[in-house]
């Protein structure tokens, strides 16, 4: 069953009476979604898993990065270099990343059949094809909810570089929408200068007493959630430094490189260290219709330094086994080099780099033909990748969220994870 139905319902065998039996009379308390499979939820309790997405905006060339084809008609001027994994070569533009390839894996057989930026971005970060009038949650929202920790007051879905709250959580609700962080603590996270902590505690006690009185008459899940949000706000205020990248020593900044990306990667490390389940860093701009090679030389130089420092740090701090790292784009770039030394949009045969969490280190999934114009084995698409990411952090990707009594599949039920990549 491979069609992308709007309802995404995998099995359609439930008869009316069976269904009714399963909901015991049908009184369903709605509003607050939860993982419907308690076993899956319990499994996640064990470790705080995290996801880091490096989004190479514009479309990273697979030929200048993960799947080089030197000395072919499509290969371009750069060589390929050996990596920490014997037999695995990547582009010479990523020398420092090559050192860490024993911790990472490559998927070289992606066919998303799309060359549009907006659609590609949607495919890769929402795990499905965009359909009019149907909204699905972003990977970050799914992770923020699926990997949520009740005791962590920090927001679960962060986009570094943005500003306000995003609209990307669909039916999961604003709680899981992305929060844009630009290196400063979130808005309103600082107590007003004319309010002392003692007085703040005092007024909050008065508020809590009022809440308790109200709760004595009638208490609901919603009134609880409301009162808890203030407690979370208080905890976040105490930890607002987490968001302040200026707290990092100068030597660290030097190691990550004096670029915006370097700063953002350092920021990402801080956030992941503090147990935030999903962090996305973007790097712009790889849309190289002109001068593909010069642009990649420059951009990947920045990326190689920051990314390798980050992967190295995650590894050294023992966080890589609980942190999935993904380097993705909206699509790849054409093997054919155009008249302006550029490469154009290409969704037919391209690559993504993953690593950490339950990803098999050093694995290579799939391949393209000799000059990279076609996938030659193990063709996968964005839906499979989405399942793979979730599986890599221990989520049941074929499970559902219970949204007000309706089951919403976590990922496209017509696809599944690349199971050989998951340990």
């Amino acid at each position, binding site marked *: 069953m491979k*069609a992308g139905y709007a309802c995404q319902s995998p099995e359609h065998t439930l008869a009316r009476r069976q269904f009714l039996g399963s909901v015991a009379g049908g009184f369903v308390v709605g509003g607050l979604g939860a993982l419907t499979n308690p076993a899956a939820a319990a499994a996640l309790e064990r470790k705080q898993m995290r996801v880091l997405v490096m989004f190479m905006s514009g479309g990273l060339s697979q030929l200048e990065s993960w799947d080089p084809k030197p000395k072919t008609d499509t290969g371009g001027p750069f060589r390929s270099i050996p990596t920490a994994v014997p037999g695995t070569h990547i582009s010479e533009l990523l020398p420092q990343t090559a050192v860490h390839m024993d911790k990472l894996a490559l998927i070289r057989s992606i066919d998303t059949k799309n060359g549009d930026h907006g659609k590609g971005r949607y495919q890769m970060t929402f795990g499905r094809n965009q359909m009019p*009038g149907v909204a699905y949650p972003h990977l970050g929202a799914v992770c923020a909810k699926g990997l949520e920790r009740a005791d962590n007051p920090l927001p679960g879905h962060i986009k570094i570089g943005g500003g306000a709250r995003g609209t990307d959580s669909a039916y999961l609700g604003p709680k899981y929408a992305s929060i844009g962080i630009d290196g400063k603590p979130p808005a309103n996270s600082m107590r007003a200068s004319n309010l002392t902590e003692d007085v703040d505690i005092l007024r909050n006690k008065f508020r809590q007493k009022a809440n308790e009185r*109200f709760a004595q008459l009638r208490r609901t899940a*919603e009134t609880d959630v409301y009162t808890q949000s203030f407690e979370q706000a208080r905890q976040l205020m105490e930890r607002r430094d987490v968001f302040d990248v200026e707290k990092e020593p100068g030597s660290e900044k030097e190691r990550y490189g004096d670029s915006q990306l370097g700063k953002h990667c350092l920021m990402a490390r801080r956030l992941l260290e503090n147990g935030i389940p999903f962090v996305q860093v973007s790097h712009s701009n790889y849309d190289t219709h002109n001068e593909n090679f010069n642009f990649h030389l420059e951009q990947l130089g920045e990326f190689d330094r920051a990314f390798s420092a980050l992967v190295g740090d995650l590894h050294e701090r023992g966080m890589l086994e609980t942190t999935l790292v993904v380097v993705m784009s909206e699509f790849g770039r054409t093997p054919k080099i155009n008249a302006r030394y550029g490469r154009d949009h290409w969704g037919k045969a391209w690559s993504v780099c993953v690593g950490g969490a339950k990803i098999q280190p050093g694995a290579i999934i799939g391949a393209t033909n000799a000059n990279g114009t076609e996938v030659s084995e193990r063709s996968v698409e964005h839906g499979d990748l989405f399942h793979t990411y979730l599986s890599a952090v221990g989520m049941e990707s074929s499970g559902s969220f219970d949204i007000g009594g309706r089951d919403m599949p976590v990922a496209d039920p017509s696809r599944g994870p690349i199971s050989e990549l998951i340990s």
Partner: protein
Amino acid sequence: MHASVRSVRHRLLLVVFVTATTCTVYGDEPLHYRIDQAFYATAVGPVAEKADDLIFARRAYLDLIGRIPAIDEVRAYLVRPEENRRTELIDQLLASEEVSGHLATTFDVMLMERRGGKHVKSEEFRAWLKASFDQNKPFHQLAAELISADTSDASRPSAAFLLERDVEPNLLTREIARMFFGMDLQCAQCHDHPNVDDYKQEDYYGLYSFVSRSSLFQPDKKKPAVIAEAADGQSPFKSVFTSREAFTSPRMPGEVEVTEPVFEAGDEYKTRPAKTVASVPMYSRRAKLAEFVAGGSNHYFRRNIANRLWAMMMGRGLVHPVDMHHSMNPPSHPELMTLLADEFAATNFEVKPFLRELALTDVYQRSHQFTQPANIEVNNLAATIEQLQQQRTTANDLTLQKEDEAQAALEKLDAALATAEPQRAALAKVRAVATAAAKKRDDAVTAQQAKKSALGARQAFAAVVKETLDRTSAAADLLASPRDLAETVAILKTRDAGNTAELQKLQQALDAAVKASAAANEVLTSARAADTTARDKYTPLQPPLRQHRAAMVKAFKESQQAYILVTHREHEVEYLRNLIRQAEAAAKLPTTQTVAAAIEQQYSVAVQTVATSEMQMADAAKTMTEAATKKATASETVTKLTLAKQQQQQANKALAAALQNATAAASALQDQAVAGMATELEKTAARVTARIGETSSQLDVATTEMETAGQTVADMQARADAAKRQADVARQQAAEADKKRTELQTTVATLMTTKSEAEASVIDQSTQQFHLATVECLTPEQLTWSILQASGQTERQVITELAKLNKEKPLTEEQKSDAAALAQRQTDAEAAAVVSLTKTVAGFVKLFAAEQGQPQDDFFATVDQALLFANGSQMRSWLSPSGDNLTGRLLKLETSDQIADELYLSTLVRKPTTDEIQDVSQYLAARGDRKNEAVQELAWALVTSSEFRFQY
């Protein structure tokens, strides 16, 4: 809320169920009365008491005009006579300026789910809605206008419903089904709904066909988009699961297919499609849908809107979620749902009078407080359950029967579809040919007209040339020196000759065009004839199709209605079982607790006994040890003395022998010395004998001592053994008691869990059945307007706007003394304040509302919202004392009683309790001379409290 009001009383209603099929005649009572009657007719279990006057007022303000009342409004309300207070308030609010604005906001959010701004600004759509509510436009008319909207300037705002969804037919189908028919048919796009038997792909495409020919048309991106509609386009569909293929004409949910007019190929358009022109068909399917909606007779349409209005007032729908009307999700009160739907339609779908009736019901005015009923008569409930289950069985039988009928009709329909398919395909083919021929004919006619007008123009030109030539020639003839004109005449002659040739050419072209046109016409005529022939073959096949489909839809609808009763009765049984479970647990709990207490007592007695026995054992052991020591010592002494006695006796024997010898010797020898010695011996023997006596008595003493100690040891052993036995028995008793105790503890815990779970379920179910008012969050708009109102920011804005107006357009002296002019000025200022504060509200909505296109009734409390409340500068500035705003007023008050009163009335719309007054007083005292800050902190704490955040 006064303590007295908060005390809770409950009625326990145990009413025998009215069978669902029985129709109760209520007569000409007002609707609110009939609603309550319908409610009480089936109410079983505890029903909450009427909410107090101030809770009612807060509720009514929020529901009818979207904000809490100002303190002046609260005080004015409280001085009204109690008996009419509520009715008067409802009427006052429904007549106020604010009601239409609030309804516009509510309907905008409901219909658009925060979509807007792509093609039509949200404020324009809201203004259109507000104007509609000001005119009391009936809802079916409003809905019809939304569906039929064209994009002329006048109706552009109402086109927002279509335009903001990019006139995308699948999206429109889903949304029209959800918003106007209460059904989320999304899954039915690709197949019958997997979990909801009622939602059929047939229904989806029936609706889809109404809108599938419409599309967004925007040839020039700089100009506003418009809506085009094609005259053709069928919507065949195929299930991705069963591969069933079918097609349908437009069909309203639960109704028969539309019969559509047939136009000859080429005559279908009012405005033919062209590159820059939006096409308009002669027959618009979308307009047809609007016409049906405007008719207001559709079963689902009526129920949907009545239920949504109910949900608006009551916090949840009789059917909930409101877009899930289907038989597995029955209304909480099927009879009431029908009553509401019929009555709303009967009163011409007028929203405000309907809201008035809802607000007047007991259901609306019920408290949100719940106390478990003291006693529930389980036997009566059991009987009711029995009755409900019988009703369920009957309804289920009917469902199955109707499902079979529907299935049979479906099979017939599919057979008829298969039979008709060749004719239908043939017709479609022929029709396509005819349409192409019509286009060719039209093109030919256009070409012919172009040729004709070219010829006409040339003919006119030629005539002018000819006439000029004639006149010039005549003039030349008359003139003396014709040479002057010769050149002109020559030119004219050349032109004339040229014209003749050109006219000939044009005439030929026209002739050709006429011919082509005639030929095209001929082609068209024969194509049309073929079309007619094909149609004549197909037409007779249609009635059976329609008939089978109608039979199927009817049977499905009947099975659905029967099944509503099945699921409804199941829900009722579930509820009653919970009541029983709760009652039984509540009844069992005290006796079990008493038994548990007794066992607890036994256990502790046994434990005590064990302790005592063990102590006795220890005592005995100690005594026994001492006695044993004594016995040992005595025994040693006895041994020693016995030995001494033996020695003494032997000595005595020896002495006696010696004495005898000595005595014999002395008498034989008459030896004086020997006799003296014998005397000595005799003396010695007497001394030894005496010593033996001493030793013997010592021995006796020691022996007695030894025997006594031995006895003590034996005694103590016996005593210890007895104590041990006693301890063993007690220990066993304790263990048994402990086991029982643990069992009972578990039993009590289970009972308490059962009871509290049942209680929680009963509360949920009571809320779902409107026995108890819901507790729902305020919408983002209600929340923000209420904060603005409570803090006094609204009033401050009005004062600002008034000053602005008075500066820009000062009132004349005459106007200043004219009450009407002053009132008008005030109204203008209030309107201006609403406009400027609407921007503030929009800022809050961004943070507090769900994403666009998502359901807007879920509650979210996020950290960023709490941070805004805690530290946002806006909130701080609203709550800082200024003039007569809330904190400004609080600051001016003297006593903490006064402050508490003003504070609670302004924010929570109620009077503070004694405890709360005391808390305020303590807070103020704690803050000493920082009263300025203290009042801000208090106001902040109440505005951010859950009581403020929720509607209850």
